[in-house]
């Protein structure tokens, strides 16, 4: 799986289907929604962006990760973090961006206590990555490209806690590398926004550049939302846009866009005008609320950061970074479908997290790629194993698959025991549960618990006789034509054999027995 080809694989490059009128998301029957997204993603570097303080600020005592650079002391010299620059270029490549030959850091000037320098070092006129796209899947089976305008590198700010009458500032987070990704206004519905963010997060996690954890603030999304009539679109016009902040989950983003589009459409319907403002999302009441802003308009007076020489990104450097790209989710999904015959649904969910895909691929390597085998594994992973992860893990996070004691090779062993008719599929579920908890080999569990399948005809027949003798009333009803009682008898027989019977054999013997009973009775 060559990394170079995967980023631009043909499978990724499926033709974008223009949204048909039937699939257009309309508010109040006539307003289209236009959304552009700004996403901030903390990069998973060990040290900060412009100094070598540890970037691992979560849970650290306040102001324990600071130095003259991130405290904004006069005379301190910031030096950019190579890993952060390379992570941004890597992301740019995965987002199909052009990497700028020259990129320049710039000072964005504003006063706020979480930014002790009085400016944030960012990129303005010359960002690192330009003009890319991300393909999202549409419900009709087509796909659509959301264009990426730019991706640049900057530094995170400190954290302020507001107490009665004053504020407390912790600068551990100040200077943590932050990548800002800006889309064009290509998102046309709340669901498209959700699909875009999901796809972007998957990509960032595959690249290993960002954790994607919105609730921890490692990924933050700010949609710019406006509405317009089809007539306005034809004239090339846009409505007034409103930026929404304080969104803590993709679901909130989806809800906020739906709410805000409705609010704006109603204003226009009543002959009013939408004001260009910043809104905040009120999660509890599921609505947007006006945020207080300073009277003076934003005036950041950007200028090139004199302390940091420009970045010159030449082809060999780009190629070296390109070579580190993993196989990306769309390419993986296509490969699972084409080479291993997986159904789309399973291929999609297995590739949604890299750790799940890694687990699946290791299991396939151990189990084999013969026809039907990868799909059988996929069913077990997305069915029983995910159920156990959700039930016994912490939250609905499939990445936990990498932390369970059971190894992928052991899951392959379990399925082989089913194939070889050592245990039946129901027993296998029980064995799996213990494997996930303890990491024991399936064979050992089967032996320890005496779970081997009962395929001994005499033993099965004895159980059938016992069940029929114990349920004369049901037997009579069966004889009277109530044939759906076969299931009941089957259940009783399985129970009598502690669930270990060969189900096919048991069913066959039971049917034969009932038939002879019926003819004799």
């Amino acid at each position, binding site marked *: 799986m060559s990394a170079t080809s995967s980023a631009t694989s043909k499978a990724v490059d499926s033709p974008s289907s223009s949204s048909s009128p039937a699939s257009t998301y309309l508010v109040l029957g006539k307003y289209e929604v236009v959304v552009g997204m700004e996403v901030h993603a903390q990069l998973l570097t060990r*040290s900060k962006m412009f100094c070598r303080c540890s970037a691992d600020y979560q849970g650290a*005592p306040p*102001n324990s990760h600071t130095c003259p650079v991130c405290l904004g002391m006069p005379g301190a010299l910031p030096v950019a*973090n190579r890993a952060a*620059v390379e992570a941004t270029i890597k992301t740019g490549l995965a987002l199909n961006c052009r990497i700028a030959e020259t990129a320049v850091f710039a000072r964005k000037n504003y*006063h706020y206590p979480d930014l002790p320098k009085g400016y944030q070092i960012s990129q303005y006129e010359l960002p690192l990555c330009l003009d890319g796209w991300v393909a999202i899947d549409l419900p009709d089976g087509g796909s659509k490209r959301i264009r990426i305008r730019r991706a640049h590198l900057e530094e995170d700010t400190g954290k302020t806690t507001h107490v009665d009458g004053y504020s407390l500032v912790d600068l551990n987070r100040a200077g943590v590398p932050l990548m800002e990704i800006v889309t064009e206004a290509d998102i046309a519905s709340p669901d498209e926004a959700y699909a875009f963010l999901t796809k972007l997060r998957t990509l960032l996690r595959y690249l290993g550049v960002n954790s994607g954890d919105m609730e921890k603030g490692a990924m933050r999304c700010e949609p710019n939302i406006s509405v317009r009539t089809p007539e306005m679109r034809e004239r090339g016009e846009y409505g007034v846009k409103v930026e929404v902040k304080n969104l803590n989950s993709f679901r909130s983003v989806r809800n906020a866009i739906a709410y805000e589009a409705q609010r704006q459409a109603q204003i226009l319907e009543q002959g009013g005008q939408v004001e260009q403002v910043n809104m905040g999302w009120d999660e509890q009441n599921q609505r947007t609320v006006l945020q207080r802003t300073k009277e003076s308009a934003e005036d950041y007076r950007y200028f090139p950061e004199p302390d940091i020489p420009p970045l010159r990104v030449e082809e060999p450097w780009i190629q070296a970074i390109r070579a580190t790209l993993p196989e990306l989710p769309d390419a993986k999904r296509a490969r699972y479908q084409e080479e291993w015959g997986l159904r789309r649904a399973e291929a999609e969910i297995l590739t949604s997290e890299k750790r799940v895909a890694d687990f699946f691929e290791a299991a396939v390597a151990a189990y084999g790629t013969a026809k039907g085998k990868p799909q059988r594994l996929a069913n077990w992973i997305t069915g029983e194993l995910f159920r156990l992860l959700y039930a016994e893990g912490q939250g609905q996070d499939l990445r936990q698959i990498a932390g369970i004691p059971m190894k992928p090779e052991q899951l392959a062993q379990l399925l082989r025991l089913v194939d070889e008719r050592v245990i039946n599929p129901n027993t296998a579920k029980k064995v799996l549960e213990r494997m996930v908890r303890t990491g024991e080999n399936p064979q050992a569990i089967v032996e320890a618990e005496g779970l081997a399948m009962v395929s001994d005809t005499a033993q099965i027949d004895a159980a059938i006789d016992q069940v029929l003798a114990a349920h004369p009333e049901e037997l009579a009803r069966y004889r009277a034509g109530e044939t759906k009682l076969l299931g009941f008898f089957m259940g009783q027989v399985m129970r009598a054999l502690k669930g270990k019977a060969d189900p096919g054999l048991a069913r066959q013997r039971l049917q034969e027995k009932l038939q002879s009973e019926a003819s004799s009775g």
Partner: protein
Amino acid sequence: MKLTVDEVKHVAELAKLALTEEEIQQFTEQLSAILDYAEQVQAVDTSAVPPTPYVLPLVNVLDEDRPRPSLPTDVALANAPDREDGYFRVRAVFEE
């Protein structure tokens, strides 16, 4: 180039400077004079010169991603006018 009083007030506000009316008048004149002087440079034809934000022949000055020890919290807070439990304590700022 003549600056207006309002422009000077705006710049002072951005720089967090509290100026008296007298100073505003004074700086309006002085800053205008400085801009006039700078304007002479504009007369030079630079159409063939690429924008030059940096004069040093340096690019890609980068550090490897290896954390080094930070300052002890007490040292970091040494110049703070006010502190509380390891935090800088500042005047109330409203939520963004």
